[in-house]
């Protein structure tokens, strides 16, 4: 009933363009004809008229390593949650290419506003993966300094960070680090968010502001097809990259399981921003292979068929196929990366358990830049209260 049959008399739709096209039909199952791809699921390099990958095989080896290690962070963290060491974990399984492609396109002076799932981008920014665990273990709310690696704290409230990103980009404009022509100086911001987030007022307002001020920001949306249990179709009935057209800046849909394409497209978008040409929307078309988080149960709402089909597009497998087929890397390399991953896994397991719990009194720290008298009194009273139990037990 919510999708009534078109009962209109012919002519009434004149002037409004063609009737709604079936954008979710079979033709869209692979992302549709507009999908930018440079490496097929089978590992074959293809060319695209507008976007090209300008790095060599060395870089691809690096991307491969990044993706494998990122996936290992993810599987380790998932296991740690199963063992009760983390309260929850937001898995990125399947989204490695989207994140590494985007993350490696960044320059040091760029700034990143992540969601809660940007473990791969964090990796590229040099955040110690152990630091990512604190939030999910419940010992902190993100312990890195955003200024150190130009990587913001994870944002839980869906979409809020897209406005922060736009404001930060406005700050860059005011700092004169946009459009100077100096590649070491010109900077941009990347705002990460999901397909679900695209429905939030904040996200659309960030498009308005970014367009209005021509701010140097790339809106990087990982359309992983799901917002918890809701399929992408609930959020939009047209491909998401087209949202940008309604706000007057370009959008492009890239194969988010293709690290080369994601890198190339994100780099081009970041260049536009750094050059002073304003915002771009990048839709990385991908799939959330895992659950929404470790507390989610996707069997309640999606078919395993879907998952199986996407497994064939695995972002890591296709790079491996490319590297092997072209003789860029042999078993040695792959074993080496695997060993590195194992070491990383072990370090995470050890490190996670060793993460210190905050002290109760730390509750009062950093509410303000300096504690207020009011809070100092609460702190002292609580201290005395806690002390009253010592020896009592």
């Amino acid at each position: 009933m919510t999708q009534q049959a078109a009962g209109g008399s012919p002519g009434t739709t004149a002037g409004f363009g063609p009737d709604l096209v079936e954008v979710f039909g079979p033709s869209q199952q692979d992302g549709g004809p507009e999908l930018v791809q440079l490496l097929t699921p089978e590992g074959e390099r293809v060319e695209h008229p507008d976007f090209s990958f300008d790095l060599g095989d060395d870089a691809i080896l690096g991307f491969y390593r990044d993706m494998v290690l990122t996936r290992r962070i993810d599987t380790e963290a998932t296991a740690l949650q199963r063992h009760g060491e983390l309260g929850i974990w937001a898995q990125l399984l399947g989204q490695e290419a989207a994140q590494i492609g985007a993350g490696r396109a960044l320059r040091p002076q760029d700034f990143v506003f992540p969601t809660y799932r940007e473990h791969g981008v964090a990796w590229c920014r040099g955040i110690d993966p152990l630091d990512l665990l604190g939030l999910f273990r419940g010992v902190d709310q993100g312990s890195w300094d955003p200024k150190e690696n130009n990587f913001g704290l994870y944002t839980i409230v869906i979409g809020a960070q897209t406005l922060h990103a736009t404001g930060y980009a406005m700050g860059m404009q005011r700092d004169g680090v946009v459009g100077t022509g100096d590649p070491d100086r010109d900077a941009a911001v990347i705002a990460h968010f999901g397909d679900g987030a695209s429905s939030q007022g904040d996200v659309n307002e960030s498009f308005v502001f970014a367009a209005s001020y021509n701010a140097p920001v790339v809106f990087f949306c990982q359309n992983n097809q799901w917002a918890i249990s809701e399929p992408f179709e609930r959020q939009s009935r047209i491909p998401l990259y087209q949202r940008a057209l309604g706000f007057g800046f370009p959008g492009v849909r890239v194969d988010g399981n293709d690290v080369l394409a994601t890198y190339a497209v994100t780099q081009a978008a970041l260049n536009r921003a750094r050059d002073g040409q304003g915002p771009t929307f990048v839709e990385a078309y991908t799939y959330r292979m895992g659950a929404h988080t470790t507390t989610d149960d996707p069997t309640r709402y999606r078919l395993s068929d879907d998952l199986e089909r996407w497994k064939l597009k695995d972002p890591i497998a296709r790079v491996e196929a490319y590297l092997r087929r072209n003789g860029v890397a042999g078993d040695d390399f792959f074993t080496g990366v695997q060993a590195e991953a194992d070491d990383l896994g072990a370090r995470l397991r050890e490190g996670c358990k060793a993460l210190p719990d905050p002290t109760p009194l730390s509750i009062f720290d950093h509410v303000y830049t300096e504690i207020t008298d009011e809070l100092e009194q609460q702190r002292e009273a609580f201290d005395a209260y806690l002390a009253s139990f010592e020896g009592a037990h």
Partner: protein
Amino acid sequence: MSTQKITLAKGLNMGLRKAMEDDPKVLLMGEDVGKLGGVFRITDGLQKDFGEDRVIDSPLAESGIVGTAVGLALRGYRPVVEIQFDGFVYPAYDQIVCQVAKMTFRSQGKSRMPMVIRIPFGGGIGAVEHHSESPEAQFAHTPGLKVVACSNPVDGYWMIQQAIASDDPVIFLEPKRQYHADKAELDETATPAPLFTSRVARRGTDVTVLAYGPTVKTAMAAAEAAAGEGKSLEVIDLRTLSPLDMAPVYDSVRRTGRVVTVHEAHVNLGLGAELSARITEQCFYSLEAPVLRVGAFDTPYPASRIEEDYLPDLDRVLDAVDRSLEF
């Protein structure tokens, strides 16, 4: 088999189902309320039985959810909105305080807002930021809204139905920590107390403890512990936060002369402040001690590893009881 043992989650689910059966105008809306049954499974099975037009998975936008619910209410529906977690009600705050709360007043009663906004609230589930908030004071401060909090499975079953039947908008707070905790015996043939009434949960003579939602359990445990030490606590489950049902409170305070309020919200400008002000005004000469308030500290909700230090617990309640008695 007129009774069965149910959890709070089950009570709410049964109550929603009953309300939907009784009135075809009742709709459920929210994120993931359909196939998933909500992240807490409160709407489990309802979309299957009532269809996608009555159990509506919404786009991910809280203002949109509440704003469209306003339109549906104006069209004669009775939307029941689920906010996924307390911390995500704020994008809808404008629609709630400027539209939902004021529509009846603005229209001089010509338009009504029979809407329920369900909010799983409170902490203690080991979650990340924004998933453990207690926003009730902000809504109780807003005229035009009614605000209630259930504390147990049986109240969950009845109160949600009563809230849906109300022609005024109701902010319906559900202590998420209790969803799948203790079970209670539900008799579906019983006659429930009216919605906007408090309930004396335990009789006592020395100190009155005022609690609601998740802290009722804490208060009851404190009363049990205190009884062991020869102190008799009267526990009142407020149930309705706006309007407040003060008569049983005043009655109690006039007998005990001492009050401790307990909530998970920040103490500063939390419900305890209003309770203290009213009690002091109405029972000035009965009070043997000032009303003492136990609640979360006036800091943001901390990382979950120390949330139990942050939240009022049995010991903090007992400590306040002692301070009150020693005053």
